[in-house]
Structures are given as C-alpha cells and as structure tokens.
C-alpha cells in the first residue's frame, strides 16, 4: 500500500489555488504566465493521479495533450508580450488599458 491518491489530489488542488491567486494578484504579464503554467502543472498532477486510481494510462496520455497546449500557449503568449513591450516599454498588465479609455 502506498500513499493514498487523495493526498496527491489535495496537493494538486492547493497548487492550483496558489496559481489562481498569483494570476489574480501579480501585475507582470510574464509572471502571470508562469502562474498559468503552475495551474497547468497542478492539473497534470491530478491527471496522473486519476490515471493511477483507474489503473490505465489514459490520464497520462491527457498529460501529453496538456503539455503540447501549454507549450503552444507559452510560445504565442510570450511573442505577444514581447510585441507589447516593444510598443510600450512595459510588461505590466495595468499599462495595457487602451480599450478602457
């Protein structure tokens, strides 16, 4: 008998919560992106735990798809951040408020 899967799920939940709070509180666009990565990682942990609970590899296959989506999202997102920085010389999300004015 090994460590119960509930504790892994609890860890995943706590990490996801930290990611949510960080994405809401921080102001740097790159840092916000890193907290989104943290949330995706927590979901990956939950998938692997579910895979173990159900005795199949389907959860691990899903981790791959999450990984690919995360990679694509990071690449496009960082390109957009770099572009915004080129225009405004700032990576803060508070400065990008043109639509509000």
């Amino acid at each position, binding site marked *: 008998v*090994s*460590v119960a*899967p*509930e*504790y*892994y*799920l*609890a*860890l*995943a*939940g*706590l*990490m*996801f*919560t*930290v990611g*949510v*709070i960080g994405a*809401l*509180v921080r*102001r*740097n666009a*790159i*840092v916000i992106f*890193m907290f989104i990565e*943290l949330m995706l*990682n927590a979901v*990956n*942990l939950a998938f*692997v735990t579910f*895979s*173990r*609970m*159900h*005795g*199949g*590899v*389907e959860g*691990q*296959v899903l*981790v*791959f*798809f999450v*990984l*690919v*989506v*995360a*990679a*694509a999202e*990071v*690449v*496009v997102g*960082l*390109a*957009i951040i*770099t572009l915004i920085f*080129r225009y405004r*010389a700032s990576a*803060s999300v*508070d400065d990008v408020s043109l639509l509000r004015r």
Partner: protein
Amino acid sequence: LIFELLVFGVMFVMALGASLAMLFAPNAVHVALFLVATQVALALAFLLQGAFFVAAVQIIVYAGAIMVLFLFVIMLLGVDRREALIEPLPAQRGLAVGLGALLAAEILYIAFQGVNLVAGGRDGAGALTALNEDPGNVKALARALFSRYLLPFEATSILLVVAIVGVMVLARRIGALGDVVEAPPTEREGQAA
C-alpha cells in the same frame, strides 16, 4: 513504505513551498526558478505514481525547454525592471486571497469526498503497476496514444504548426515586409539610438 512516505513528504513540502514562494518573490527571475523547483518536485510525484515516461517528459519539456524560454524572454525585457507595487484596485488582493481560500476548500473537499461519490472509488489501484510490469510504461502509453488517441494526437501537431506560423507573423519586424504600420519609437529604442 516508510521510504515512499519520506519521499512523498519531501515532494509535498518542496512543491507547495516553492509555489508559495512564487507568490511572494518580487523578481520575475526568482519566480521562474521557484517554478522550476515546483516542476522538479512534480516530476518526483509522477515517478511515485508510476508515470515514468511522463516524469521524464516533465523534466525535459517543462523544467528544460519551456522555462528556458521564459527566462530568455525575462532577460530580453530586462531583469532589473521592478514590478509596480501600486495597486490600482485596492480590494482586489484581499478578494483574490479570500476567493482562493474558498476554492482550495472546495477542491480539498472534492479530493477527499467527491471522488468516492462520482468515480466509484479507486477500483484499479494495482492495475497500473501490472501495466507498468507487462507491456511497460512507455509501450502502454504509445499504444494508447497511437491507436485510440491518434486523432487528437494529429490535432496537436496542427496546433503546433499554427502556433509556429502565428509566432513568426508576430515576431517579424514591423515594416520589414512593405509598409505595414509605423511603430512609435519606444523609450528603449530612443535610448539606443
């Protein structure tokens, strides 16, 4: 069992501590390094749960490639830049922490109670170990990925191609191909000139 408990404890403290440290680190580079620590700890968690190949991929792709990309962009935009600590929405920080605590409580409740209610308990606890023994973790994963999940797999390849093309369009120098838009000179370029 004692050893696994010990490794689990170290992993738990490392993952949660590093992710909490991400929250309080003022420098973007420190946030990135704490995220790397979190991902290494998660790879440990994957190993503990018999997902060997996913653990290796986690280290190589996440802690390696993606985080290097993050650090590269942080360096490109300037490390010395401080995050603005002036909060334009005063209530947001407390609200975020309060709602986050609520979310954590909900997820914890579901983690300890809901799984038994919805998924019918853990029926296949030993099945994954047997699967890792007989065809092997990588073989079982490849069989699932290239037979039943072949269509989503191909869809991800399309996603990657679209992402690459999109980034190439975004990263191209404005005005390099004809006169698109005249970019206003930023502070940085003004200093460089």
